């Protein structure tokens, strides 16, 4: 058993994320394709995540926000490497 990788989640899981965060992750993943379809393929993964997290008009679910933050931190870490 591992713990879900999302901060403060701590749920037991055999995968990377617990079931609910996994569901959110899948929604974020497929959502990106739909965002690109709507806005154009120039939309970056990073900008997509920032909007999910910070734009008040985008009513992202709480669990999906957890995952978006997790993914965004990975992108930011990479930049500073």
């Amino acid at each position, binding site marked *: 058993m591992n713990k879900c990788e999302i901060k*403060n989640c*701590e*749920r*037991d899981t*055999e*995968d*990377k994320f617990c*079931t*609910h965060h*996994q*569901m*959110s*992750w*899948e*929604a*974020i*993943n*497929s*959502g*990106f394709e*739909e*965002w690109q*379809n*709507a*806005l*154009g*393929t*120039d*939309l*970056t*993964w*990073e*900008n997509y995540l*920032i*909007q*999910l*997290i*910070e*734009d*008040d*008009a*985008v*009513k*992202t*679910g*709480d*669990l*999906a*926000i*957890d995952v978006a*933050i997790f*993914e*965004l931190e*990975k*992108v930011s870490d*990479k930049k500073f490497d």
Partner: protein
Amino acid sequence: MEQYLIDVPKYVQSKPYTFGIAEKPSAAKRLAQTLDVKAKEFSIKVTKKGTVLHIVKGWLITKNKERIVILSALGHLFTLVQDGSGWQYPVYDFKWVPISQASNKLDQKFNNRIEATIEAIRQLANSAEKYLVLTDYDEEGEVIGALTLTQLVNNDALNQTRRLKFSSFAKKEINNAYDMARSKSTAGEINLGMYNRGLMRHYLDWLWGINLSRALMLSLKNYSGRYHTLSTGRVQGPTLSFVAKRQLEIDTYVPIPRFKIQIILKKYPDLAVNHKKGFIDQLNPAEKVYSSIKGKDGLIEEIVKNKRKISPPAPYNLSSLQSDAYRYHKITPSNTLRAAEALYLDAAISYPRTSSEQYPPDMDHLEILTKIGGRAGFKTIVKDIFTKNKKLVPKIGKKTDPAHPCIHPTDQLPTKLSGYNKKIYELIVHRYFATFGKDAVQESNRVNFTIDKEEFYLQGSRLVTKGWRAWSGVQGNTAKTELPKLKEGQTLAVSASELIKSFTQPAPQYNQSSLLKEMENNELGTKATRSEIIQSIINRKYMQGDPIHVTPIGMIVNEVLENYSPQVISVELSRELERMGDLVEQGINENSDSIFSLSDAIVQGILHLHRMLADLKSNEQQMGSLIDHGLRTQRKQELIIETCNVCNEGNLKIIRSQSTGKRFVGCTLYFDNQRCTNTFPLPQRGRLEKTKDKCKADGFPQLRVHGGKKPWLLCLNPECPIREEYLKNIENRKKESKKKAPALKKDGSEIKIKKTRLKGKPKKKPSVSKKDQLEIKIKKTKLKGKVRSNK
């Protein structure tokens, strides 16, 4: 029994007499006074070992020379408990005991009252010649009446029992029911099918409740050594799962952008203009449309008018009344039921727990309308009904009910009306009026116009003939918009147009009314119990608010059951058990031995339950871990922050407003007559967590907010310098990200990163259960007072 001294007035005890059992004291009074204008109230002093337990009130009436002594059962006098001892599961042995003996938190005064009532009934019922059941005519009423007699007299008592079957407390109805009970007709017999079905429901609900709740609690205790009250039930489980499932959809939801052209007309700025395509999915085509119409005016191509007849509605049954009460007055289904029951007890309306949409065949509409017309506010409508209807033939619906007609007003006006009762009574009366009305006619108008070949339209409607709507109070109000007079070929000047980006939204949260509908659609529970089940889940703090959201612990309970014994929350099983109930009811009423009996139903139920419990037992470890985790998360989000800085007495707590759904920090003394009104605003998004650290600038408590790029500390003080600065930073960041937002730069490298990262792992199923860990023998269950042979 020697220990009780029961002091009954001599004139009451003189034989022979019939013993009557009513549901509640208020009903006993109303029935007694309706059957006999000279009804006499008397008192029975019940003493136990020298101390007076309670003075029990009763009624003595004489009707057709029959002397009837009426006592009331105070709702339920008996409850089911485990037969045997030990905190373990499974338990399949149970027995009825007086509520006062069941170990729970009921107060001593109430227990004394129950105990005294039981002894008074025992004394008077055992000397009676025959019996009369006067409870509400439904499953629960049948159980209360028959169970009281079988428990306190014996099973044979039911052979000397007659039944008053009535759908309202109106004088005529009660007296007719009494004549029927005196006759040999089956209409005056106790309904044993209903009684057995009611017993089945009690037994299965008890078995489900105690075993599943213990499975939850013991898994936590065995995993962590800790104790926490957890529960679920036969109908609660599936009901909570609807809300939890919807909530998970909302919590994991990722909105998708879409586009809309917004147009404001110069002369009619308030009219909503719609593009023929509605939303446009992609920015490019949306921009093309927008640039082609920008700065141009519209031309009306076509005006389409349509007339539509709207026939009067069917009379109310409980579910349509609950739905309308919520729709027009935001009265919750359980409050609606309570108000309707008060009106029923006041003899003003018929029995509300009904699914029928049909009036009783012998209903005297002329009489009822005349009486109601005597009330200010209804007078004009009644007059109108009489002038416009030569014959009083109301509209009826298709739905029926085996025991009762639709909900309708009686010929007796309510004695006093206020609050919810008034609103509910008015809905019922106006609906009654409406069923006498003619069709309403509505004209809808659609104005199609183009701006440079792009098609737009205006939509409006108006009522041409009011028909029944004129008589139906708030139900007749239509929020439709009427369009101004326009002509084909006319130019529509446009004052502004805009391309708007919006986002898709998840399915809405349930409210009490839509949840009730969902239960009904899935045949969960009964019309009589649904709203109470919702209320009980709220009382257990598994759901709260309106719209309803599931609390963290409610989520956990649901998830545990979903993962380790999905049958518990399945709608199919619940339906199967209802069908079993149908068989039990028919079996008794059709008087055949070979048919499915109550005991068969209980055995079947236990077999289902046994399988579910085996699944849970073999996953005890995982369940315990999940629950333990859920409780720890909940504690982290614990609502109380610290003692209030204003009154120094109450606690500062995160509160969600019932009306707006917004959250804020407030003092707990607010709920104590508003003794303290200290509040602090909160951001509405992001998960909040308590912290121990105080703000460095002003010493106010801080909350950690999850939901920005990084969790941040929020000082409660709205004027805090640190808080102000932080919020300013957020604003700036937002502005920047908005600039970047439609991100029109080529940036292929980022997309590649994304693709390598986003390879999901397949979900694994929970570990296989070892059913053989559990060894249970299904003992013969003791079903005291259950079935009597039908001869």
